[in-house]
């Protein structure tokens, strides 16, 4: 589904990603961990096409196509979803209207007619239940006045609505209390299917109690320095990153 080879990216003249290699297959859940400033969020942003970053080398193949030449919205329409670490507020644009437009764009891309108003409302009710999102929030402006937890739930709600092939969740757990964390993580697990994949970027093993990863990768200074199964996350939680970083230096 996703194949990243030797990906280098910079912001200004500062190189942040320094040769990432990663393959994600359908049905898999990958967790990317690593200390602050190691490039986790940059990786997510570069995959989504954020123009703040410049790709200087390497290749990303998504669904058999070179992703890096594709505009941001087309990546989304091809089935790539980014759950934002800091979801953005859009004053004056209601959540329901925003989702209606996004869904219509996606259906247009697939050659489908937009949903009727009643089909859309039904879908919205169904999907907001997945993350226990208060129905009232969908009539409010996108993320405006949402609490931290609501914003993150809202990201997963959008993911549920858009049914992406590959979801990259950038620190979806940060700023969540334990109940919201459980709700968000359960939502993600319920959306898992054999034909989609999830990349979870996280600081803490806690999230991985709920979202069980097939692979755990450690990102350090713009490279994946170690990969393992879910037991790696437990070890990192207990022992920190130092032993890995020392090993990497030697």
């Amino acid at each position, binding site marked *: 589904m996703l194949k990243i080879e030797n990906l280098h990216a910079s912001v200004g003249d500062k190189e942040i990603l320094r040769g990432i290699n990663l393959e994600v297959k359908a049905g898999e859940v990958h967790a990317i961990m690593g200390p602050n400033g190691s490039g986790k969020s940059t990786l997510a942003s570069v995959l989504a096409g954020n123009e703040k970053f410049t790709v200087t080398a390497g290749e990303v193949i998504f669904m058999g196509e070179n992703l890096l030449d594709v505009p941001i*919205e087309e990546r989304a329409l091809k089935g790539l979803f980014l759950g934002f670490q800091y979801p953005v507020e859009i004053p004056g*644009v209601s959540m329901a209207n925003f989702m209606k437009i*996004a869904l219509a764009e996606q259906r247009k891309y697939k050659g489908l007619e937009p949903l009727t108003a009643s089909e859309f409302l039904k879908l919205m009710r169904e999907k907001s239940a997945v993350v226990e999102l208060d129905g009232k929030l969908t009539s409010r402006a996108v993320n405006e006045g949402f609490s931290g937890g609501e914003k993150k739930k809202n990201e997963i709600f959008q993911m549920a609505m858009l049914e992406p092939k590959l979801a990259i969740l950038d620190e979806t757990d940060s700023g969540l209390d334990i109940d919201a964390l459980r709700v968000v993580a359960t939502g993600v697990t319920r959306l898992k299917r054999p034909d989609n994949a999830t990349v979870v970027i996280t600081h803490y093993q806690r999230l991985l109690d709920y979202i069980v990863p097939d692979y755990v990768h450690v990102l350090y200074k713009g490279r994946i320095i170690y990969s393992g199964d879910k037991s790696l996350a437990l070890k990192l939680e207990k022992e920190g990153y130092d032993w890995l970083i020392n090993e990497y230096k030697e």
Partner: protein
Amino acid sequence: MTIEELILSGVVREFKGAVVDSSTDTSLPLVLLNPKSRTIEVAPSVSVRLIVACTQSSQGGVELFLAENSSVEMVNLYLADSYVNVTVHQSLGSQCKTMTALLSSTNVTYNYLLEGEYCSNAFDGLFMAMGSDHATLNLTTRHLKANCNSNSTVKGVSAGRATGEFHGLVYVAPDAQHTDAQQQNRNIEFDDSHIVALPQLEIYADDVRCSHGSTVGYSDEQAIFYMRQRGLTESYARRLQIEGFVGEVVNRCNMEEICCFVRDIVSQKMSEI
């Protein structure tokens, strides 16, 4: 749809008189079309919806006298380059609500004179300056007596090589104790356009609550990225962002047909960005 067509279709009614009182049919909004120099009195306790529309390039003026406890809800639209003065005198307990949209190279001056106690005044304004437009909105709210409140929100959008100006003044006279006055101004600039904002407060009473604020910013690129990540094209995302921004003003208009009408013109305007 044009204002003239709205009149023909009986959604609104053109008004040629000088007095609105209990004998005036106020079931439909009354339209003042391209007013040159109109003076209108609203009788005590009468409620009326007024539409002031400048559809032809013109110089004009409207002066309204709101008698005790009367109430006016006004929509003022500037669709052609014009130079217009609107003055509103408010007596005891009167209410005035204004929604205005400057959608052309227009210079409009609003003067609200709160001459009686317990008046309330709400103002929502929008100016859009595109291409080589120069749109200026002057707003003065004068609190002359005690116990009145005013609340103004003005939003500006500029694009191309246009210039937008907002001059706002809240004046509170020495006698106007217990005034509650708020004035907010938010602007977004695109391209090489620019917006000049001059909000001012002049307060001569000491027991009042007044606040004002003004910002000039650019399009929020993070929000554009966010919307594109959900599959919207860049131009769609930009349009939605401005629609949301100006929507706060446009949606304050309570006259359904007029509100739709304004939204359509705003959408057209936005396609120029």
